[in-house]
């Protein structure tokens, strides 16, 4: 898996084309807006945009989705700082210092610090991703069917254990995903099964309507219920927000930016590590970075409206963006919901994510790496120019937002294959996603296990074929397979005991008390 110079030049040409640059800019532009609007998340935005990528080339499609992802993670900080209402859960830790600065008339400074910290940590973590992913892929190529099977089981168990406060609910979500993944033909013999006697399920459940339903339609149903239950009153634009539109407002000096290097470093380290682990995600990255920075530097009084607090939280969440793709590229295992959606986009483009991708589709890999890096420049430019305009998006009345997203969900799921049954499937999964939200059952394990189910079955059955039907030999045919099986048990237990959500809650409660 040596560096392929020809493929790299091809990727450079593809990425630097007008089309890719335009879609990357569009992605970041939409993403920052999605992040700034409370109620929309990066996964909702990426799910809605997924159908648009069918007609695009590989590089423009990746540009749109990765740009949107990067923009959305940063965009959450805009409404967090402006209205103390984080646009996304990732930005919740930014509220503590960001909104206090806003109230003190330093909203412009806070927004710019959030942008600079986000872009710095994002860029550096992308460099780490570019270096680490190929090395891990080399390791993954040595794995046989048994090892790959256990690796998938390990990822699913970690996802279930870490995706929310309740282990049973996380595992339940994963089990639902596994069950849905068995609908349709089996991956080895192509025999139809589990179709509930519906002919249109013979082909299985399509990923696009499913992700649109679970992430977009489910979220909008929840929003619609809220609106029906209480009349929506558009909040008036406060004087403090208006001051951000003034170009004469106080910016961030180079000295101030550099003075936050330790906090950004903490965010980079924690965010990168957390991003690579399946299940944790950017919200945990932000809260952990914030908590560690606050404990490490008590003299800086983080939590009282300090730039350092914003830097730690924003670096912590944006540093997860690139690394969350590492398990996807190295092992073919998406570590988060958005990584699963980007993996789905790659599959729709004809490239199955995994270690073989580095050999079979080096141009796509190099394009993806370049887009990850260049996307930060767009994020910086668009965030710098439009952040203060996006602050107004937080006031966009939800009655306008909800019908638009629902309309996009219907069109997107239908245009995937011009199949009306996909609309039915999307609406069904919308209901499922809605009830999962109400009952606080995490959605990510469902989608990721759904994606992994056919691969897991294929690997297990290949192992059985190689070992002539001997289950013990198929499951534990090497010390590595045994080690991974033990790791499944140990890591699931340990990760469930870590109680990440409770720790984040403790930090949030402590800040409220302060």
């Amino acid at each position, binding site marked *: 898996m040596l560096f392929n110079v020809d493929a790299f030049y091809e990727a450079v040409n593809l990425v630097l084309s007008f089309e890719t640059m335009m879609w990357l800019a569009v992605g970041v532009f939409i993403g920052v807006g999605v992040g700034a609007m409370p109620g929309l998340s990066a996964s909702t935005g990426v799910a809605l945009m997924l159908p648009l990528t069918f*007609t695009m080339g590989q590089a423009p499609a990746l540009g749109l989705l990765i740009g949107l992802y990067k923009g959305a993670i940063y965009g959450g900080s805009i409404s967090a700082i402006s209205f103390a209402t984080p646009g996304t859960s990732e930005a919740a830790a930014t509220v503590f210092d960001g909104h206090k600065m806003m109230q003190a008339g330093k909203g412009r400074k806070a927004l710019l610090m959030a942008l600079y910290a986000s872009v710095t940590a994002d860029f550096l973590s992308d460099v780490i991703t570019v270096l680490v992913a190929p090395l891990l892929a080399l390791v993954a190529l040595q794995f046989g069917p048994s090892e790959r099977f256990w690796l998938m089981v390990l990822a699913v168990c970690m996802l279930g254990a870490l995706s929310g406060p309740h282990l*049973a609910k996380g595992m339940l979500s994963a*089990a639902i995903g596994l069950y849905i993944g068995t609908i349709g033909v089996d991956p*080895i013999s192509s025999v139809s099964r589990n179709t509930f006697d519906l002919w249109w399920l013979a082909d299985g459940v399509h990923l696009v309507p499913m992700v649109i339903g679970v992430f977009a339609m489910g979220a909008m149903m929840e929003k*619609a219920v809220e609106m029906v239950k209480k009349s929506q009153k558009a909040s008036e634009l406060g004087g403090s927000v208006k001051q951000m539109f003034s170009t004469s407002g106080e910016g961030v000096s180079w000295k101030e930016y550099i003075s936050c290097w330790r906090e950004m470093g903490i965010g980079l380290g924690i965010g990168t590590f957390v991003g690579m682990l399946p299940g944790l995600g950017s919200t945990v990255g932000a809260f952990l970075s914030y908590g560690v920075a606050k404990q490490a530097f008590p003299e800086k009084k983080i939590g009282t409206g300090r730039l350092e607090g914003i830097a730690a939280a924003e670096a912590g969440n944006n540093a997860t963006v690139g690394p969350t793709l590492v398990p996807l590229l190295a092992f073919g295992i998406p570590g988060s919901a958005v990584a699963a959606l980007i993996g789905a986009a790659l599959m729709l483009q004809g490239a199955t994510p995994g270690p073989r991708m580095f050999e079979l589709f080096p141009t796509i890999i190099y394009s993806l790496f370049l887009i990850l890096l260049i996307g930060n420049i767009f994020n910086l430019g668009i965030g710098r120019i439009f952040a203060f305009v996006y602050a107004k998006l937080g006031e966009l009345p939800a*009655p306008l937002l909800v019908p638009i997203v*629902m309309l996009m969900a219907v069109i997107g799921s239908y245009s995937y294959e011009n199949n009306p049954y996909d*609309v039915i499937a999307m609406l069904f999964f919308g209901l499922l996603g809605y009830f999962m939200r109400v009952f606080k059952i995490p959605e990510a394990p469902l989608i990721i296990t759904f994606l992994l189910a056919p691969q897991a079955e294929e690997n297990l059955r290949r192992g*059985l074929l190689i070992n002539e039907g001997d289950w013990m030999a198929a499951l534990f045919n090497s010390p590595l397979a045994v080690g991974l099986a033990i790791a499944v048990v140990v890591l699931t237990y340990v990760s469930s005991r870590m109680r990440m959500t409770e720790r984040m809650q403790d930090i949030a409660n402590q800040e409220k008390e302060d």
Partner: protein
Amino acid sequence: MANHSADGESRGNWIRTNRGIGAVLVGIVVLLLIYLSTEEWVYQTLRDGFRLGFFSVFAAFTMLACAIVLLFDGQKDEVIEDVARAGKWEFIVPVIVVAVCFGYFKVAWEIDFLLVTPVMMAIGTYALGVRPITTAIIAGVIMTITIYGLFWAIGIELPTNLFSF
């Protein structure tokens, strides 16, 4: 934030606790297992010796195990805030949304996207609280044109049976 410790049973809200949710889920999964037990493909053995229904049955039993854990684990009496506040609207609104979306899809693709969508958008935004009605109508028209333009730009044609360009 999401959960608050409350003795749901003492307030007669047993069904709103994790235990209540678990009980409902156990019922649903048992029905699923009954369905699986009646299906022939579940027992079909393939040429490689693998049971076709292995993963489906495994997934269903895992769901059952998780639902049972919800009945008995340390968080069994916790009530989720959203569930605690839930009333009839939590069930009615999603059903209405599904019906309206499907009805809209059938009508828009049968008649004309550009004709049906502004009307639906205006009704939707008005129903969700946009006032006055003229704002809802203008918003409906603008949203329709924007979305049509977006999909047209990327080469996806939406049905325009009456207004064809």
